[in-house]
Each structure stands twice: as C-alpha cells, then as structure tokens.
C-alpha cells in the first residue's frame, strides 16, 4: 500500500505586475529558499532529502523552448531528476504526488513561475490556440471567455451583477492576503462601470497581468512527519481534459470539471462537497468562471451559480468560503494560479492563513484551470488529519 503524500512546506512571492528587478530564476528562488529553509531539507539521494523536482512554466511566457532552464539550478536539477509541466501548477503538484506515491522518489520540490510582463500578453494567450484554425480569428482568453460568459448568461439567466459579485468578494478578500497583487474595495456598480473589454465582460471581470512564483515540498507520510508537525495530506486529486474546439462544447457547462471533481471526491471519500469541505480555492481568471466552476464542483446545481453567490454562502464567514485569498482575480500569473490555490489551501489547513483564516478548517479544495474556456480542469482535495 502506497504511503499517503503530504505537503510539508509552501511559499509564494508577492504577486506583482512587473518584476523587472528579478531574473526568472531569482524570482522562483524567493519562494524556493523559503521552503528549503523552513524544512531544513537539502537536495540529495540519501532517502531523506529532495531527490525530485517538478517545475511548471510555459515556453511562450518565457520566450524559450525550455522555460524551466533558469529555474532548474535552484531546484537541485544538476545531475538529478526534473520534470517540467507546461500546464497549470495543480498538475505539477499532481505529478510530484504520483512520483512520491509510486515510491520512485522520496521528496519532491514543486515550483511554478511566470512573468507575464516579459511578452505580449495577448500574443502569448493567442498562442494557446490551435495554429491553423483558431489563432487567425484573433481569439484570446478575453474574447473566448466572453463567448463563454455570453452562452452561460443566455442559457441560465446569469446576470452581470452576479458575476460582478465574484469580483467584489474576491478583491475584498485579497485585502487579507499579503501575497495578493491588487486588493480592492469595489462595489457591483464599480465593476459594471469599468470599460467593456469584450461584451459582456468588462475590465474588472478579468485578472490583472501578473508576475510571481510558488514553491512547495511533497514527501511520503513517514518522512513528512519527521519534517513538520503539520503536514497537509493530499486526499484526492484528478484532472480532466475538454475538447479544444469551442464549437464542440456547450460553454455553459463545466463537463470536464464535473468528471475531474467526481474522481477527486471519490478518492478523498467525499460524497457531499458542500457540507464536507470547509473552504475552496477556485481558479477564476474571469469573474463568471467562479460561478460556473462551483456548479462543476457540485457546490450548487447546474445553472444555479448566480443565485448561489447571492446567498452569501461563499463569503468569509459563510458555510463554504470560496477564495479567501482573493483568488486569481486579485492577480496571479497563468500556470502559477492553480498552484497558488493549493498553497493557500495548505496555509488554511495549517491554521497559518492570518487574517484570511477560515476558523477550524480541516478539508479544503484547490482547483486549477488551463487553456481556453477551462479546457483542462484539475481538482485537489487536501486535509490536515
């Protein structure tokens, strides 16, 4: 029987619109140094050191066909094992979990970095689309998200006000998160008064451009308990891909997320997520996505995301606070965002989340998303007992 896998340390940089002062490796090292110092772990192959690295980065953001190049010296990948994941960081954590669970490695350091300031945001996002089919339409995550928002609003009567409530809640929560890039006091009217980007979505419906990094260390139960009195266990993890072509999908449905969540819940023994989860950190680079993803995660029924947020259930102090950290909307880079959700869930379960702490949190969900309109959905369930 494989050992349980625990996360023994997490660290994030403060997220920032332009870290012109830092080389990518130096940026990542800000987070890496913290997890090395906190655990006292070294890189090595003696069975009690970090013998694996999983990095997460995107070549189009970094402008190299090896976006991991400048981070690898810092994760011990000199004559040692390393795997790069070029999707959301939740999948990097998943790979590290599988490496440790399989017994192939004893301890794995996982690092995601991105500096969206280094290139054209729109060209980089456009590059995520199929080269001979969709790119030439000038689609990017803004316009594609707007198509999805329109479909979701049309099918289920979701209102711009309900989407704006996500922005108001998360930007306000971000005020309690020292790593958050853009905490803001906003009203629904502020969001609805911000400039139109692509109908029906406005500037404040989107996350700001962001630079930053996140790091964590995973190991098996025996080693984890030696390292920290507060290991956080990965209870369930899964991901599911959706077809790329938007015309093949009903964009008002989160079918891939429903499947990913079902598998992760089954692994974690969760039958009623709305009751059994103490909080959720959900990747929502665009406002309406938090509503749609909550449906996919089974927090409410299909098409009920808008009415669900109006109940206040997902606010701080509600039954299941969603994005106490402020979420991706408060500013996280692409690829880093989902892993930041895992890091925030870990802080909550360690009772180290400061002013954003959900009292007595025992089980938390972290969600990551990659690709256009949530093409790849990843779910992780974490617990502290």
């Amino acid at each position, binding site marked *: 029987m494989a050992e349980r896998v625990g996360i023994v340390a997490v660290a994030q940089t403060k997220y920032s619109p332009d870290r012109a002062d830092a080389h*990518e490796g130096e*940026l990542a090292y800000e987070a890496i140094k913290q997890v090395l110092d906190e655990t006292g772990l070294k890189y*090595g192959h003696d069975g009690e050191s970090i013998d694996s690295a999983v990095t997460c980065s995107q070549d189009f953001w970094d402008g190299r066909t090896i976006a991991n190049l400048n981070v690898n010296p810092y994760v011990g990948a000199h004559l040692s094992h390393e795997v790069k994941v070029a999707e959301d960081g939740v999948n990097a954590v998943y790979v590290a979990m599988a490496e440790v669970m399989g017994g192939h490695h004893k301890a794995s350091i996982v690092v995601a970095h991105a500096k969206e300031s280094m*290139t054209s945001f729109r060209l980089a996002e456009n590059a995520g689309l199929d080269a001979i089919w969709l790119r030439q339409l000038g689609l990017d995550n803004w316009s594609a998200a707007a198509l999805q928002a329109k479909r979701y609003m049309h099918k289920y009567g979701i209102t711009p006000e309900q989407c704006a409530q996500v922005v108001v809640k998360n930007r306000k929560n971000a005020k309690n998160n020292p790593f958050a890039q853009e905490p803001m006091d906003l009203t629904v009217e502020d969001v609805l008064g911000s400039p139109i980007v692509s109908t029906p979505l406005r500037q404040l419906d989107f996350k700001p451009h962001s630079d930053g990094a996140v790091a964590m260390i995973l190991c098996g139960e025996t080693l984890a308990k030696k390292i920290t009195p507060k290991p956080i266990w990965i209870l369930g993890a899964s991901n599911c891909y959706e077809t790329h072509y938007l015309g093949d999908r009903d964009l008002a449905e989160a079918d891939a997320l429903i499947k990913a969540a079902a598998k992760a819940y089954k692994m974690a023994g969760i039958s009623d997520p709305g009751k059994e989860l103490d909080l959720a950190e959900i990747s929502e680079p665009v406002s309406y996505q938090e509503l749609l993803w909550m449906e996919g995660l089974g927090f409410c029924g299909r098409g009920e995301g808008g009415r669900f947020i109006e109940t206040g259930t997902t606010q701080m102090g509600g039954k299941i606070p969603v994005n106490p950290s402020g979420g991706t909307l408060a500013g996280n880079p692409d690829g880093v965002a989902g892993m930041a959700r895992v890091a925030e869930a870990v802080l909550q379960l360690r009772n180290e989340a400061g002013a954003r702490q959900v009292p007595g949190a025992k089980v938390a969900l972290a969600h990551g998303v990659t690709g256009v309109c949530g093409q790849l959905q990843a779910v992780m369930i974490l617990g502290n007992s």
Partner: protein
Amino acid sequence: MTQQSSQEQELIRINYGTPRPYKWATGKYIGKLYKEAKENKQLVTNRCPQCKQLLWPPIAFCGRCKVDAGEDWVVMNQRGTVVQYTYLVVPMWDPHYGEKFANPYPTATIKLDDGAYLVSRLQEQDPEKLKVGMRVEAVWKEEGRGTGMGDVLYFRTIEE
C-alpha cells in the same frame, strides 16, 4: 492554387511571420555582470562558498553544490586558455538584432585563468593556427550595447 494531378491533394501550409516581443530581466546577478561589462569592460562573477569555484554566469545558487551562492564577487582576469573550439562554416546571425556576423569567427570554450569557463568567439580564423591550449585574451567592442558577453568582440591570440 498550385495545379496538382487529380490523385494528389494540394499541400497547404499556414505561415506565421509576426515577431513575438520579449524583454527578459537580467536580474540582480547577471545584471551586475552586464553593468560592469558596459561601464568598466570588466568580467565579474561570484564564487561558491562551498566548492570555491567561480560560477558562470553569476547566479544566486550553486547548481553543483546545491547551496546558496551568496555574493563573493570577483573581477576576473580576462586571459585564458582555449579548451575546445569549432570553426563555424555556416555562421548564425545575431538573433536579437538581425545583424549578420561580419566573420564566421571560431566559437570556443575558454577557461579563464581565474577558473571560469566562458563560451565566446576567437579572433583567429586560420584553421591551421587554431589549437586546443592556445592562449587568448578578451577584446571588447568599442561601442557595446550593454549585453554582457555580447559586448566582447572576440578573444585574440596572445604570445606569452
């Protein structure tokens, strides 16, 4: 449309020719090397506190020893010895500025006398005179762009 025989499907490809802009931060460590190269025509780097070797390019972490590298900065002697070389017959062009290199200078790994291994170009273009072990010294461009090793024109052969 290209005329093809009725049995063959026309081969269609989609071209992409738009430049993708990037601005890479040199950061604290490599940034210091670039500044010293531009302002003082000096090659500086930091020394690993554990193995005592000079790191190149400068970096905050020694990949070999896997320890924090700190800031023991050293101004390097610009003389060294050729470790290996190749004569680039089909020269690459400068990918940042699009300029063709004036000459297909031989590319070489040079071990500086202080111990760091640099990859740069050699002045010597006569294949008969290129030798592993030859002694060389850095020659700087008169007007560098502030791009570190890009401001070194080549390493010239020296007699000692």
